[in-house]
């Protein structure tokens, strides 16, 4: 279903971290040229690029750290006028299940063993003493959003939506609605996540995604959205088709993806065709293949973002939007249109359409 009604928003700036590095400009071209190789390593963060200070980073999950950097990059790129009230900036993010730093969990568990067994009483003393007092702040999902908001002083309307793909599309729809209703002047929208945490990776293996070709990765992507007027690129469509399997109570992820092909056909009916570029991101080869089959009918040029960036979970749709943004801004002409199709692990399908506006000079700040 279409989530944004008639609402249109302009893209004012963006921030991204991925296997491509700490940038989104050039991402589309690099992916199209096969210059971004799939892999499962962490995004390299130089000290100068990292979020907060050492003490603050001790409180962050990996996803929170990535999200905080992306927020800073987007806000810096926007070059907001001095005096811009950041309490009027909303934040809407798709977030994953934050995992505590393995070292902290290890320390707590290890110190809790007694005579070969786990002792709760020992956990209460030695276990707790071995872990950071602020471990809870690594564990709660909302901190993926809150760390960046605190560091950047962003205080507007907000929502952290759990996402294995679909929630990030919902976050964008929420941001568009908030802007349309005047709840905020600007809004950060996107996602941050890591599939590299041991618990998350084990979960993905259990569900059969890794065997299906999913390449675990990490990343973050945030758009800074504002009014459409005067924007070089606007987002004018946001759809989500819930997984058909959900209505049957289906929880088997592999089977849930079976319905993705039908949803892609629904998307084909609803979003139109003739796109200059279609970007897809899916869960492993099986999902991506279903999307690619439709994408080639809808657009002249197709880019598989997941093939180069790996599976970044809640960040994946947002990074795919940035791929489209880059293509629109760098290689497509005025009036060019892009479609982004993103699949969630439960078989939900999201679609976002972007358009570069004719007669608007420049391509956001820094162009």
């Amino acid at each position, binding site marked *: 279903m279409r989530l944004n009604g008639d609402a249109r928003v302009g893209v004012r700036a963006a921030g991204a971290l991925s296997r491509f590095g700490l940038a989104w400009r050039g991402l589309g071209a690099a992916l199209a040229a096969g210059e971004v190789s799939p892999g499962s390593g962490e995004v390299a963060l130089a000290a100068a690029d990292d979020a907060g200070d050492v003490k603050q980073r001790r409180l962050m999950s990996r996803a929170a750290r990535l999200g905080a950097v992306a927020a800073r990059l987007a806000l810096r790129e926007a070059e907001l006028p001095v005096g811009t009230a950041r309490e009027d900036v909303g934040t809407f993010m798709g977030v994953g299940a934050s995992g505590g730093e393995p070292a902290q969990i290890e320390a707590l568990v*290890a110190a809790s063993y007694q005579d070969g067994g786990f002792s709760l009483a020992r956990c209460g003393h030695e276990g707790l003493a071995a872990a950071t007092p602020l*471990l*809870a702040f690594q564990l*709660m*999902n*909302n901190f993926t959003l809150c760390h960046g908001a605190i560091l950047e002083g962003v205080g507007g*309307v907000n929502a952290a939506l759990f996402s294995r793909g679909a929630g990030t599309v919902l976050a964008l729809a929420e941001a568009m609605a908030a802007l349309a209703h005047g709840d905020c002047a600007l809004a950060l929208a996107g996602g941050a996540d890591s599939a590299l945490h041991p618990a998350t990776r*084990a979960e993905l293996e259990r569900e059969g995604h890794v065997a299906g070709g999913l390449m675990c990765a990490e990343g973050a992507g945030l758009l800074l959205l504002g009014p459409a007027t005067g924007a070089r690129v606007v987002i004018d469509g946001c759809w989500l088709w819930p997984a058909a399997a959900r209505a049957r109570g289906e929880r088997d992820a592999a089977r849930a993806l079976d319905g993705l092909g039908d949803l892609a056909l629904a998307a084909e009916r609803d979003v139109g065709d003739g796109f200059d570029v279609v970007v897809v991101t899916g869960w492993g080869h099986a999902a991506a293949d279903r999307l690619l089959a439709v994408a080639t009918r809808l657009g002249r040029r197709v880019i598989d973002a997941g093939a180069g960036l790996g599976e970044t979970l809640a960040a994946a749709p947002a990074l795919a939007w940035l791929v489209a943004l880059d293509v629109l801004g760098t290689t497509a002409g005025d009036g060019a249109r892009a479609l982004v199709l993103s699949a969630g692990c439960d078989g939900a399908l999201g679609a976002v359409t972007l358009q570069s506006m004719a007669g608007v000079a420049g391509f956001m700040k820094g162009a």
Partner: protein
Amino acid sequence: MSAAPGERRAWVRGAGAVTALGADWPTSVRALAEGRSAVAPVTRFDVTGFPSQVAAAIADLPGGEREDRRLALAERAAAEAWAAAGAPTGRLGVFVGAESGRATFATVLALSRAAGGGKTFDHARFGVDARALAPSVDAAAVSPGAVASALAGRYGAEGAARTVSLACASGSAAVVEAVRALRQGVCDVALAGGVGADVDPFMLAGFGLLGALTARGTSCPFDVRRDGFVVGEGAAMVVLAVDRAGARAEVAGVGRTLDAYHLTAPDPEGNGAVRAMRAALADAGVDPGEVGYVQAHGTSTPLNDAVEAAALQRVLHGAGRARVSSVKGALGHWIAGAGALGLLCALQAVEHGVMLPTAGLREPDARCALQHVMGEAVRGLPVEIALANAFAFGGANSSLVVRRCA
């Protein structure tokens, strides 16, 4: 984004809750109205050595032995709300405030053994042994989205199924999402609320490490003796719909903000909370002086209660005529479910004229000078407008305004 005449509104068609004081909401209300508290020593597991050893836990929860306790709680609350609403028809959306679930302690123990028994953490061994355990672990136990997905499947929701993870504001923010979705036409009926199932060793450890839990073993919001919160568990759900049918109240206004201040401490000025409350009141088109009752976030922590009280005084101009209470004195803090429980308490005030008391509150702190509801419930004072607050670790704030409708 208040609803103008003719616009789609979020009518409250039904409510349900399972709490430590009752298997359904009416039973819970009767106990709450008498000022009873469910806070008691933890007996479900060994808490020797833990900084706080009390909780508001639910005993004898049917199905509670399952891998994911959240589902057992949420399904019961949803069933009650759905029945109370008369099983409405229309495009259904599901909106749940939930954090990550946790595997049972037995599973965690097995995983830790797979890591080498605790003396060292053997990554290679963990990679082999822990993953071999994977098929026996219900995925729902760890996914925040599992509750919304399960409820969506149960009630045939073909529209939105959203999981909001905003810590202690999750349940309230999920209701915000539902209201927005109804207004925008994304769905016609919304099953919304929150669930918390945090009476387990790891949450007691995590919040204990933080120093946020009571060492004294009491939950007494706004009292001079308060020294931390008590973990509780439960689920609260409402059914909202654009078709009023026999509804007597609506969620008329919503507001969400971020403190953008500090990770562990609330903004001492309460600016984020103030903005959230004002946004919700403005959204409802309500003057602060019209508020008759506030279900406060009121966690029983020294700083948070004082900051919220000051924020309420600012918003309500010296607290106005509004009576204030916090259900956490009786049922502890449900974390992701807390905001939804707060909404039910606010609804109780506007729908039935029953303002539930703050259990445990005997001597109000001078820094929390409000018109507290103490002892037993206040009845017989019609409440037209009520406000329900939820403020989260990390500085996410969510406020809801409910209105009685003749």
